């Protein structure tokens, strides 16, 4: 996929991965990788961005005697996620136009 387009999707994709359950770095990458290619090094900045915008919060939990950082979606994050529904409709229209055939 086009890099520019991909960048726009990543934030919302990471949010979507937290939709049902708080998660942690490695797990988020594994989940997203099923539908979209994401590297470990791109995830961190995205998480920081989401946190700075108040779309996710973090907490630390002990896991096998080490600390693991969890990310949880906030109400604002959920709003943002639901807004992507409208984006989807728009993108659909755009692609219908891009891929239209001559009649």
């Amino acid at each position, binding site marked *: 996929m086009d890099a520019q387009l991909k960048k726009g999707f990543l934030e919302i994709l990471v949010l979507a991965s937290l939709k049902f359950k708080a998660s942690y770095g490695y797990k988020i990458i594994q989940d997203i990788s099923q539908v979209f290619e994401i590297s470990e*090094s791109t995830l961190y900045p995205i998480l*920081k961005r989401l946190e*700075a915008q108040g779309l996710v919060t973090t907490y630390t939990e002990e896991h096998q005697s080490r600390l*693991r950082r969890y990310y949880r979606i906030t109400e604002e994050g959920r709003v943002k996620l639901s807004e992507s529904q409208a984006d989807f409709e728009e993108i659909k229209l755009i692609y219908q136009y891009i891929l239209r055939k001559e009649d």
Partner: protein
Amino acid sequence: MRKREFLYRLDNALESFPNAEREEIIHYYEELIQDALDNGENEEAFIEKLGSIDKIVRTLKKDSDFVGNVKEKKNFELKQTFDKGVKILGRVLIIGALVLSIFFGVGFSIFGINGIVRSIIAMVMTISAQLSVSATLYYLGNIAVHLGILLFAITFIWYVVQNVGTKLELLYEKIEELFKKGGK
């Protein structure tokens, strides 16, 4: 590269970052690698996959600017909300002061007029039944006192009305300043 070497090199490459952020990044990668190992991934292969340390640091630098901007914007929004709150509070206080001033002014005016009218009526009524010197003095004094109160009240109202524009605006600004100082 093994985990320890990778983290050591990354930490060195993050020298220009604030300490808290540096620690957070290191912790992120440490946790990530450990989780990968726990999941049965090959250590060297996984670290290879993370990409070059140079590239990681470059991406982080670009983004720490973004995060900084967002934080600044948030502070700005917060400040605006706070300013708005102070403005509303200031207006409420001023309107309150104005209402109170007029209330007192009108109250004193009525009190003054009432006293004068009562004294005059009492004097007129007692004139037929011969007004004594002391009684006359009493009533005249009474009139004078109430006239004084009336004049005071009128001047007060006049002052308030005259200064609504300037003095109260100044007061409002003072209040605003006070709250801003309190806010910081």
